[in-house]
């Protein structure tokens, strides 16, 4: 059972890593508009500034 002394702290570190990944995804705007992204493929491409993430 000694391995627990390594694995439990490791899992804590892992959670912090996941929290960091979540931070990146929230602040890069991935959750800002979850409905629209699915419809983007239907949009015309003639106004690129309006359809690409800045």
């Amino acid at each position: 059972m000694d391995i627990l002394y390594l694995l439990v702290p490791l899992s804590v570190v892992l959670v912090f890593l996941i929290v960091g990944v979540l931070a990146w995804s929230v602040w890069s705007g991935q959750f800002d508009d979850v409905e629209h992204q699915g419809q983007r493929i239907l949009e015309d491409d003639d106004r690129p500034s309006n359809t690409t993430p800045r």
Partner: protein
Amino acid sequence: MVIVGRFLSVEQALSNKSPGMPHRLDLYQVGRPAYRAPGKSAPYDRRSITIPPVRPRSMAQHAAFMHLDDPAELAEIARELPERSGAGRRLETVLTVDGVHCAACVVAIEGALRGRVEDVTVNAATRRARIVFRPDTQPLSGLFERIEQLGYRPRPVSRGAIATAEAAGRRTSLWRMLVAVLCMMQVMMYAVPRYVADPGDMSEDVVRLLMWAEWMLTLPVLLFASWPFFASAWRDLRARRIGMDVPVTLGIVVTFVASSAAAASGGEVYFDSVVMFVAFLLIGRWLEASAREKALVGVGDLLARLPETVERLDADGRGTTVTLRQLQAGDRVRVSVGQSVPADGIVETGRSHTDESLLTGESRPIAKQPGDPLAAGSLNLDGPLVLRLTRSPRESRLQEIADLIESASARKPRLAQIADRWAGPFLVAVLVLAGLSWIAWQWIDPSRAIWVAASVLIVTCPCALSLATPTALIAAAGNLARGGLLARSPQAIESLARCDAFVFDKTGTLTLDRLSLSAVRILPPTPRSPGSTVPRAAGSADVPQTPAPAWDAATALAAAAALEAGSLHPIAAALRRAAASGAPLPEVSEVREHGGAGIAARLRIDGAWRDARLGSARFTGGPEGGAAAVFLAIDGHVVAGFELAETLRPDAAASLDALRRDGVSVEILSGDEPGRVAQVAALLGVPDFRAQASPEDKLALLEARQREGRRVAMVGDGINDAPVLARADVSIAFATGAALAQHHADMLLLGGRLDTVVQARRLSRRTMRIVVQNLSFAAVYNVVAIPLALAGLMPPWLAGLGMSASSLVVVLNALRLARPSPPAGIVSATATRVAGAA
């Protein structure tokens, strides 16, 4: 701490920019309303999109709001109200106050501003404050400063600012929620073995290890995710009052500190309860915030329908791309298919259909041809149009609607005011109760005293109680607005639900304010001598006395419409409409309009020019006293008479029927002559009507009904009937034509459909039912939960679950009102006409 650092940097990015600099946020530029980056979306002045910097209180602070006193800035964010008693200008503005969570905040802000301003209402559900102030004696910057001193962050609500700040706020709250939920899951993983293991299964060291792992993961939840609760509780304490977040914060901190002590010394730990409580509370708040956003037809939403750039045409028809803000009345603009109309105007060339559902709730496409008005925000569906603007984008109907919704969402319903008054004492009672329970349990079981006190603190949070009313009314108001009915204040919905008598005005309410042609009568040739003038058409002098062609209804109507082609008179419009689908119009020349009598012109019929007159019996020599209102005379012979009628609204009969079926008494009250009112009443099957009523009569009748104990809704014309409307319990007006602000009614009908009123009444009754459900649920929950917690039967985790669940239930219940209501079962009949009017 990585997370905290990240969070702070965003906050700083939001607050430390200098005015005039748009904040850069990594937002998607995807054509969805609230998420646009300011630089792109700003249809208005750049200044409007800066967020006032927030600095610690210092000398520089006053300067932070100084720019708000600039007249140009004021015009952007405030609305002029009609002057009263000559005490100077009055302005109304709406601001977002960050940090408002509960009733206590509301009381604090309102209390601080009252006395300085004419009127102030703060709505905790929308975080909006509505202020009526006199800029000459009390500058806006001073008011903002006062709010900031209380520890809140005021922001003027001007177009782009809302989108930017709300997008950032939304991300932060989503982020906090995700951190809390993720940590909650992992803390549970560590906690479960401790709960299920038999004594001796796990060594003491492993138990310790798991406890400290829990402690590690509780830290980010405590330090980052629950920050909003701490901040708001601190604000409350500094202002020496008790807000909703004070017991919540105490509960979190007490549980955490006691658990940490227990982890160090051995004993029961409740880290899992802390993270779960915070996570559920944040989920609840996040849901409520997104619900509020969806339910409230946000100003951002409305105005984001406007295009960012438009193609303006110069005199030669060449197009240049300009921003919306550069447009002025009189400009010509091309609106391509799929684009929305940038400002109110009139179609110059092109034919198309437009979707005006955003403005009027009318879902059918509306045909547009040259000469037809176009409203900003409507969508051009199937043909390019060239538009001549009649108003600049800033003055458009859409802007008016947005302003109205904005100011309505800041007003507070009566029920919520009552709840606010009770919240303060209730919270004090909670704290006292928690303290008493801790003392009492010292005798019963000292080891559990701290947990009982924490449970009491957590379980009694009156979140559900304070959310019960505002959320429901906002959801309902949003729903009504989508159907084309604007409520000026949430209070109107409450009043409408109670109404049991409807009084309708006739003209413009039950009838359309336009005439329609009801019959064309061909008159037999009179034995009078031919007309005094001799036709002198070019090249046809040799056929002066050809016999008049045989007239039938279609040709007579075509001739009349041709004569009236240039006239603005309502009769002319009716004739033109009637002739639009009939025979081709003959040529006319030498048109002379005789004011009040009719039109004389020369008309080309079968290749010959003839003298034609169209007008009253006296002007044309037609028979007097008949039903016909205007006559057509050719060469002095009266050939046809036209009967005109008022048009009933297509859905008037069905709507009134539906109201009566719903158990509401219906009456007609009109200033018109008895004959016509009786006719309309008979057609609609309304036995109670009063004609030739002066405004005083109308008032007296309303008051008589109210003395009978009825609550009266008055549906009428918001401009001429203003005093009568003001007396009614709730007033509804058709907002056609004039500026919305000029209509004095509690509710404004934008779509011109009477059945909206029926649906609104049903929805408002449903709203009140849901409010009552919510209030009683919240009350029952507290009555049941508090004794359980006091008796020690509720561990902290159950208290957290119960409290968060109760506010979720209330919010979700209220959200049922945001769903589109089922059709009222009113079919729109074809237009019914009342004969005899002229």
